[in-house]
């Protein structure tokens, strides 16, 4: 008998007989009832508490804010997609500001060392955010592959303020994740960190040292606190 069959047989022929399944009540992980302002302030408070940076921008002029942030951080080579509106708008706006735009629609085998050693920042869109934990959620695509939010030392993530939801559970339920998962789904909550050296927090151990969340607001930016 194969290992598989042996294991399954042993589990099925349980000595103490069949088990019954208790009901699960998920109320404790949903129905927070927060307003849009509460969601935003909670998201910002939590993600900045773990060294995430948040800047706000009006929807129409967000690329100006991006250009300024890139200049402040001294980014010279920026990896980004082409097709997603975030990437397309960024490319258009950054065409003449002296930042080299690095294409990511290439198989990693052909540019791994370049990505690891010669890219200053990766720009990605996000699908949304989780207010309760200060998290971003991303479903990487061929246009915006998974490594550009991980390998470059700075990750810049663009989030629409109205894409914030209360809890992770709410996101999973309202977007029907169970109906079809992508190759890789991610929650990102801050820059890479470790406390493995005597509980002392250090940032940027394997992934990005900095996470910059650019929050875009429709109409007048209510959260423009910068």
């Amino acid at each position: 008998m194969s290992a598989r069959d042996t294991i399954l047989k042993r589990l099925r022929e349980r000595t103490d007989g069949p088990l019954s399944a208790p009901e699960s009540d998920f109320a404790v992980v949903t129905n927070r009832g927060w307003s849009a302002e509460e969601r935003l302030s909670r998201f910002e408070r939590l993600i900045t508490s773990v060294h995430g940076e948040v800047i706000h921008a009006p929807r129409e002029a967000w690329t100006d804010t991006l250009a300024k942030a890139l200049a402040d951080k001294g980014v010279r080579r920026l990896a980004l997609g082409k097709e997603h509106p975030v990437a397309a708008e960024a490319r258009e706006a950054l065409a003449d500001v002296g930042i080299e735009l690095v294409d990511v629609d290439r198989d990693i085998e052909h540019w791994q060392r370049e990505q690891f050693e010669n890219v200053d920042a990766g720009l990605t869109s996000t699908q949304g955010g989780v207010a309760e934990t200060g998290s971003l959620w991303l479903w990487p695509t061929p246009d915006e592959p998974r490594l550009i939010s991980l390998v470059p030392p700075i990750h810049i993530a663009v989030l629409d303020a109205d894409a914030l939801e209360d809890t992770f559970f709410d996101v999973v339920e309202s977007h029907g994740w169970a109906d079809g998962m992508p190759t890789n789904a991610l929650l990102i909550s801050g820059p890479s960190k470790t406390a493995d050296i005597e509980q002392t927090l250090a940032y940027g151990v394997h992934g990005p040292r900095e996470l910059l969340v650019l929050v875009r607001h429709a109409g007048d930016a209510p959260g423009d606190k910068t």
Partner: protein
Amino acid sequence: MSVQIFTPREFHRQAHDALGDPQIRANFRKAMDGLMTKRREVFGDWDLETLRELGANIRLRALSKLPDLLEQLEASCQANGIKVHWAEDGEEACRIIREICESHDAGSVIKGKSMVSEEMHLNAHLEEAGIEALESDLGEYLVQLNEQTPSHIIMPAIHLNTDEISEILHVKTGTERTRDVDYMTAAARSQLRQRFMNADVGVSGVNFAVAETGTLCLVENEGNGRMTTSVPPVHIAVTGIEKVVEHLRDVPPLYALLTRSATGQHVTTYFNMISSPRKQGEHDGPREVHLVLVDNGRSSIYQDDELLDTLRCIRCGACMNHCPVYTRVGGHTYGTTYPGPIGSILSPHLMGLEDTKDLPTASSLCGACGEVCPVKIPIPDLLVRLRRESVGEGRGNVPGAGVKRTRKEAAAWKGFQWLATHPGAWRAGISMAGKLKALMPAKLGPWTDYRSAPKPAGTTLHALVKRHQASKAHEEER
């Protein structure tokens, strides 16, 4: 620093040594105090009991359907393009992983943190086959450089302080001696980035495997888990068969409990959900993903209604953070992959009671572990159950049951049982003990090493109560 081999057979000697080492005691005390405080604070505004109830229910539901869910997980993974393997024990799991590596002519494996790979000694197995296995979690990397094993399931290098780590990095990798944690972290980052680029295979653990969607969930802060599962061309995930959950919606509550219980964090930096290898048109990620399901004693634990609760564990480590014994003796003392209270109820099944008979007694039964467990495992009850098993008074399901049974002790308890159920003999015996108290020896084995021997009272409690009642009745009559 010399390399010390720890074994559960030597628990008492190792505990004695650890208690005498002020450095170990200070390192653990400081770390555990910090972790307990952080956990308490992060659950502050939560209805913790309701959340724990939900966590326990989700795990119980998964276990109640375990064989079906494992089949469903296999089918979902296969439909997504993930290859699924089954291993009855650690050796078979090691062989499967080695063969996958060999089929790719792999010379180097980079590893994300995986306790089950520690449990089956995967690194040693791969090294023997000429395949280098390098740990990439910073704590695991430090422990590996120092030729040790993890002393905590979440924080592998918690037994080392900053100076010790600086020395290890200096000696093994040539960095400067320093107390600058950022410098040391950056050094490890650049050392390991080279290795990520060159690794042929990435091996990771799994925190939750979702049957419904064929999704492997990994919880981490450093990004090494994402690197391990995204950079090398082949990813092998290895997990115990109990890690499966039924639905994707079961994951958020368990994740909420795990991070808060483990390190007092609202959330970890990364929650990495992998459902397939690189698809046509995608530009990165492994081209092959394998899942190795390891039994290694778990299906035996599964047979028994009481012991089953052991399998609910989500490996947060809160029980060890709150254990007064673990905090004092540290993780290595246990000599097992899983230390602390969860280790003491799990290891006897994995290794047999012959080797681990002292572990269920490494507890004062204060109950802290059971109180903080996010999935409500009654750890103290299970410790007592294993104590019974070890003296042959359980149901004998545990390998090595009865190993601690001695004829003398069994006869003594039998005698006590007879005495306690025969009131006449009991009263005679008690009154005799009071009269002969002068003959009581002052030395009673280890008990009197640190205590004075108990002296039987001249008059028994029963006699005192009787006398008291009589004099009260006499007073009332007057």
